[in-house]
């Protein structure tokens, strides 16, 4: 399986994401510049964390118009897995691939520490390796992760089981509905503020993120068993 890590000017978790795939998962991965329009050769698209375009205007607002985003939209339409982490999640929200928006954290501070998450939906291509309701520890590192959406959107997300991860025990940033990660209706575009790529090896302190990448791989293999 071949993964693309999209690199925007100001991305800074691209290297972590690359190593999570290459070393922890053992799959093929390439850095892909934000200028590249054609992403058709990749089986999965990863939008890493960081501060694309300096977070100017709004987090993710400018990256959303980068050339690579037309390829990301196309991959999403084709049903390929698209994962946006932290700034990548913000880009997915700005692009409209996922509903809602991010505000500054409730306490106006940049928060960088491990948090507990509850796996609310373990029946997605990103979470099938987790147990139902499993509580996992994954680091967060953001200043604008305060998820906001209107009542109608929140209701739809809940009814369709699109809230994949919620903060567990405490809500660090003020997110509506304790939302930490959501998926699109079709189930192939996941955005999350916590960093699974920073929790894939004992030496990093946590390994709970590994199952997310293993889920993507397993589901891809199962759906491609006849063709490859």
């Amino acid at each position, binding site marked *: 399986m071949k993964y693309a890590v999209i690199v925007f000017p100001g991305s800074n978790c691209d290297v972590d994401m690359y190593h999570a795939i290459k070393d922890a998962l053992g799959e093929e991965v390439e850095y892909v510049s934000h200028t590249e329009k054609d992403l058709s050769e990749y089986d999965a698209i990863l939008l890493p964390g960081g501060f694309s375009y300096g977070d100017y205007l709004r987090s993710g607002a400018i990256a959303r118009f980068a050339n690579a985003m037309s390829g990301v939209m196309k991959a999403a339409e084709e049903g390929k897995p698209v994962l946006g982490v932290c700034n990548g999640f913000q880009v997915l*929200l700005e692009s409209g691939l996922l509903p809602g928006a991010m505000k500054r954290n409730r306490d106006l501070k940049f928060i960088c520490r491990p948090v507990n998450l509850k796996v609310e939906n373990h029946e997605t291509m990103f979470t099938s390796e987790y147990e139902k309701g499993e509580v996992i520890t994954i680091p967060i590192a953001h200043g604008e992760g305060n998820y906001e959406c209107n009542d109608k959107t929140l209701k739809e997300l809940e009814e369709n089981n699109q809230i994949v991860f919620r903060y567990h025990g405490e809500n660090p940033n003020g997110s509506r509905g304790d939302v930490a990660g959501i998926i699109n209706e079709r189930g192939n575009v996941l955005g999350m503020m916590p960093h699974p790529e920073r929790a894939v090896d004992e030496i990093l302190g946590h390994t709970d993120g590994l199952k997310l990448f293993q889920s993507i791989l397993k589901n891809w293999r199962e759906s491609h068993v006849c063709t490859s």
Partner: protein
Amino acid sequence: MYKVKVYVTLKAGVLDPQGKAVKGALHSMDYKEVQDVTIGKYMELMMEKTENMEEKVEEMCHRLLANPVIEDYRYEIEEVVPQ
């Protein structure tokens, strides 16, 4: 040339953590009469004369300058006479 002034604020009903902190600071400075503070953005665009100017500004606000999910915007367009 035209100067376009764009004002972006959070929609009413969307909690504004910055506004809340600033209101708290003003209250602690004894400006008790302050009822509410909303923090937004102000942008200035210098534009050449163009057809459908207002339509274009509207489009720019909607697509990039503001996020309509949580923000409201308004703008003023004024002609600037070169000195």
